[in-house]
């Protein structure tokens, strides 16, 4: 019944490589080898699970429910309204049927998803993202975890994260979640200013923020939690940002995520709305063209008031990097900071281009080299799950080519402080590509946006980089990694990565 779910493998006799790929896909090769090499110095990520490369050991679970949609959000969510979950509940209140129905669907998807390999590689990380997963009753979260355990296995001490919003849980609920296996919380605080929270449409205020921080820090059995902040909110000032960072440091989370506000089309912040209004008075006469009133409403433009200017918002980024580093956090990824050893293992799966399962509305999985995003509308998602169960869904096997894989590797690894492993890269995608990439980056190594590092991840002077480049024969004899500098290189990551894209796909 499930055979068609992943036709790339399911149609083939076991253990034979798929005929459409004469060689093992390089991305996987890269990913596999990358896992073996990145861990050798002070700033290295926690040693990654040493698993066979093809089996995902991470699962993302989308729990789309929110009380209301935040003004910046363009995610597949289901707004429940204020009736549900506003009061922290212990579960005695009847569960919202929409949540129950959805979780049922989720469980069906889990059950219908065939593990990539039969050799019982257990999940090392599970991430409940949303939406606002903390609106989901803990017993339902437990049900999902049980299903995952049953289907794919859970390792002895997996990282199980959940996103929680202030005002949606109490100590008991958190205890309950920890009781069912959750051991990492990502707290969506976003700001410490009442006005800012209101203006970006958050469903909570500053009081709930402090309350939530209190609950999380007081929770026994929960050592690992992240504070999520958003910078460059409308009307945000430097003082406000400094205040938020101070409060964050004071709360002593093990991890901080700082997201720069992105104005997305279709969100309240980004909308461009053109509305035709009927005439205010009178009837529409048959032969008289009705007057049409047009209401045009524009959203915010990045860099334009009330949003902070580009300069201000770049400054916010730099301030965060400075303050959090001072407080002992490593800036290990463009928007992630952690105390040593507390990097989010689940997110590392993404940055290291390793495969992962995903379940739920709109979620994106990466299995057998194929990225697939589920339908973002509930009805279509439900139909999709049905097809998956019936075995009538098959993913069109887009053969992801070398260029795309190289782009993924560059794009993901340059987001991290570990950077791009040049030797691995040139092994997977060819020496000449690695060379032209380095040549393109040369001026930026000189200007300091990009840092060249040796095997020990010690930064090298740009002249060494250039010398190494001239010595085409053995690129990487000295330079082993390149990374974007913090904060300047990170701040221009799109520019630099798109330059690299231009080299990969000229």
């Amino acid at each position, binding site marked *: 019944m499930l055979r068609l779910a992943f036709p790339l493998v399911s149609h083939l006799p076991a253990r034979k490589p798929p005929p459409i790929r004469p060689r093992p896909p390089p991305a996987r090769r890269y990913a596999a080898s990358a896992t073996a090499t990145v861990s050798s110095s002070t700033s290295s990520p926690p040693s990654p699970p040493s698993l066979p490369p093809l089996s995902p050991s991470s699962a993302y679970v989308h729990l789309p429910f929110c009380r209301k949609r935040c003004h910046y959000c363009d995610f597949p969510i289901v707004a429940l309204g204020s009736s549900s979950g506003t009061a922290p509940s212990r579960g005695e209140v009847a569960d919202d049927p929409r949540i129950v129905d959805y979780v049922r669907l989720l469980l069906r998807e889990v059950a219908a998803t065939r593990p990539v390999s039969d050799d019982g590689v257990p999940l090392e990380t599970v991430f409940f993202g949303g939406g606002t997963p903390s609106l989901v009753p803990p017993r339902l979260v437990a049900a999902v975890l049980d299903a995952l355990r049953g289907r794919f296995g859970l390792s002895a001490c997996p990282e199980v994260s959940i996103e929680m919003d202030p005002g949606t849980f109490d100590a008991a609920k958190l205890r309950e979640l920890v009781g069912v296996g959750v051991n990492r919380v990502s707290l969506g605080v976003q700001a410490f200013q009442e006005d800012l929270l209101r203006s970006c449409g958050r469903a909570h205020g500053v009081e709930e923020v402090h309350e939530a921080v209190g609950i999380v820090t007081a929770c026994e059995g929960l050592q690992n939690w992240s504070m999520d902040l958003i910078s460059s909110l409308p009307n945000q000032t430097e003082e406000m940002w400094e205040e938020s960072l101070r409060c964050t440091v004071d709360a002593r989370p093990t991890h901080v995520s700082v997201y720069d506000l*992105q104005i997305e089309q279709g969100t309240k912040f980004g909308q461009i709305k053109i509305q035709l209004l009927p005439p205010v008075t009178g009837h529409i006469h048959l032969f008289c063209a009705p007057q049409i009133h047009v209401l045009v409403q524009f959203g915010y433009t990045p860099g334009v008031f009330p949003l902070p200017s580009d300069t201000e918002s770049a400054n916010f980024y730099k301030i965060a990097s400075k303050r959090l580093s001072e407080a002992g956090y490593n800036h290990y990824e463009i928007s992630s900071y952690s105390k040593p050893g507390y990097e989010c293992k689940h997110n590392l799966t*993404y940055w290291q281009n390793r495969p992962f399962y*995903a379940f739920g509305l709109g979620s994106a999985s990466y299995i057998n080299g194929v990225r697939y995003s589920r339908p973002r509308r509930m009805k279509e998602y439900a139909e999709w799950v049905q097809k998956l169960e019936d075995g009538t869904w098959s993913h069109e096997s887009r053969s992801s080519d070398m260029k795309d894989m190289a782009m993924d590797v560059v794009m993901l690894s340059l987001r991290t402080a570990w950077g791009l492993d040049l030797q691995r890269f040139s092994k997977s995608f060819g020496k000449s590509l690695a060379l032209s990439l380095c040549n393109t980056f040369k001026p930026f190594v000189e200007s300091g946006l990009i840092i060249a590092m040796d095997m020990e991840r010690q930064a090298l002077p740009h002249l060494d980089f250039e010398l190494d480049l001239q010595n085409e024969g053995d690129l990487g004899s000295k330079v082993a990694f390149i990374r974007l500098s913090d904060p300047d290189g990170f701040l221009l990551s799109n520019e630099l990565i*798109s330059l690299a894209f231009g080299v990969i796909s000229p």
Partner: protein
Amino acid sequence: MATATASRLAVLAQRPLTPAPRRRRNAPAPGRAPSRPRALSAAPRGRVLCLAAPASAAASTTDAGQDRLQKVPISNIRNFCIIAHIDHGKSTLADKLLELTGTVQKREMKEQFLDNMDLERERGITIKLQAARMRYVMNKEPYCLNLIDTPGHVDFSYEVSRSLAACEGALLVVDASQGVEAQTLANVYLALENNLEIIPVLNKIDLPGAEPDRVAQEIEEIIGLDCSDAIRCSAKEGIGITEILDALVTKIPPPKDTSKDPLRALIFDSYYDPYRGVIAYFRVIDGSIKKGDKICFMANGKEYVADEIGVLSPNQMQVDELYAGEVGYLSASIRSVADARVGDTITHYSKKAAAALPGYSEATPMVFCGLFPIDADQFEELREALEKLQLNDAALKFEPESSSAMGFGFRCGFLGLLHMEIVQERLEREYNLNLIITAPSVVYRVNCADGETVECSNPSLLPEPGKRRSIEEPYVKIEMLTPKDYIGPIMELAQDRRGEFKEMIFITESRAKIIYELPLAEMVGDFFDQLKSRSKGYASMEYSLVGYRESQLVKLDIQINAEPVEALSTIVHRDKAYSVGRALTQKLKELIPRQMFKVPIQACIGTKVIASEALSAIRKDVLSKCYGGDITRKKKLLKKQAEGKKRMKAIGRVDVPQEAFMAVLKLEKEVL
């Protein structure tokens, strides 16, 4: 259908053209007449055995039209052209003449109008000329009327002069609601120089604003032409057409009978047909020409065999022989119109005429610009397109040029601005090329320190300041006719363009002729547009080259991040360098996206910076969150960004979008 297609062609003459290799933007819908050139070449050419037939007493004019191929005595031939300003109704009048003489059926006319060529219809101008032979019976006597069409624009004044030379008379058509315009005037003078009998016609008398008396008086005052029996007509309404036909017969003298002399035929137009080679239109001045004759073109000495000769009536119809006074075409497997240039004389190889007809001259390009394909891959296509156009347009010159900013392209020379625009538009429309067009420039004469004089039309090739003693630029005399209300704004415009006031004459109480001399370079931009807008469309102009003069000219360079951008270099007058430099640097700052570093944008004369702007560095370009590991959207954005970079041209380390170049070049056209 073929007849219909060819008929209007012959009259309004659409300048002949090579078929576009690709579908044109406004390709005719299936079922409609195919595009003109193809139709022309594919048209079945009727074969008529032409003997000097006796004049048939046709019952009606229309029937007479059907006998139009029959010979008439030379005393019954009338060769004429129509001189008119744009929109004064030349095409409509020509249509009516064809219709009334039965040369073309009314039904066909309409179809033809629809099939008119885009470019001409939009501009309301006839760019090139052709001819139509009509038969008209007056007092039971059949006459052969040959209408030779003329282009109406000053860029083509040489072509105009050659077609005038093929005629004995001209209809001067003036819009009775408007009056005489500068171009009309220029062409009337040309006609008078050629001793043509001029018949004044006041058109559009049906319009409410028509003032035929005033306009008649204006013609008398300005041109000194007796307008007492000027014909009042409305080509649109068909009023006065018979009177015009009668006047053609009674007033215009017949050609001289020199059919016994050695052959001399004047080429007044030629075009390239991809199936038959060049088709030359000519008027036999002396002697006669037969099919199969071995002929010689006197200007270049090349010899051919006249494979086919015929008349235009208005589609091509083969005949066996044409005599002095007659107008026709020939095809002789000629490869390029440059070998059958307008103004050249055709003679017999074995019995050459003693001297060629006077008035031949080579085409000299006056205005130059660089044409670069936006997509570098289209370079070869551009070359092919230019070569094809050149087959048909001997005045078009081009040579390859390369530029760091624009890549490979061509520097092209044109007779004038209209000619330049037409070529550009045809390249874009008919050949689907996307082009960047540099600011037009003129040919400068650089007097070098070593005594040598160098001609230079490309600012980037201007000799170094140290090597040159002085620069001379071409000057034109410009005559502008305007209602007196706009004299002020027009003089202001001419002053702005470094004009030197020469003369102002009130040609009537309310209209003045203003004469200036100004540098051609000042005219190649938007001078004409400005003239039109400052006079609310009423003023008209005409210009002629008066020679070279020394000017205080400097080369203005643009540097982006200290890298000179050759394509943006211009030659400007010293007094204008600052304002131009400022405008250009400001525009570039607006259009170049910010880079990862600060970029200075400067305008320089030599090493001296005269205007400077700085593009600040990008502060931030980062995508923060990968929701749930969904990297696809982010990747898409980055890919798009990478694509955007690819479309830019690298000037040193700076990525400059093509649009920035184009906007600056456009600005150069405006501010220079």
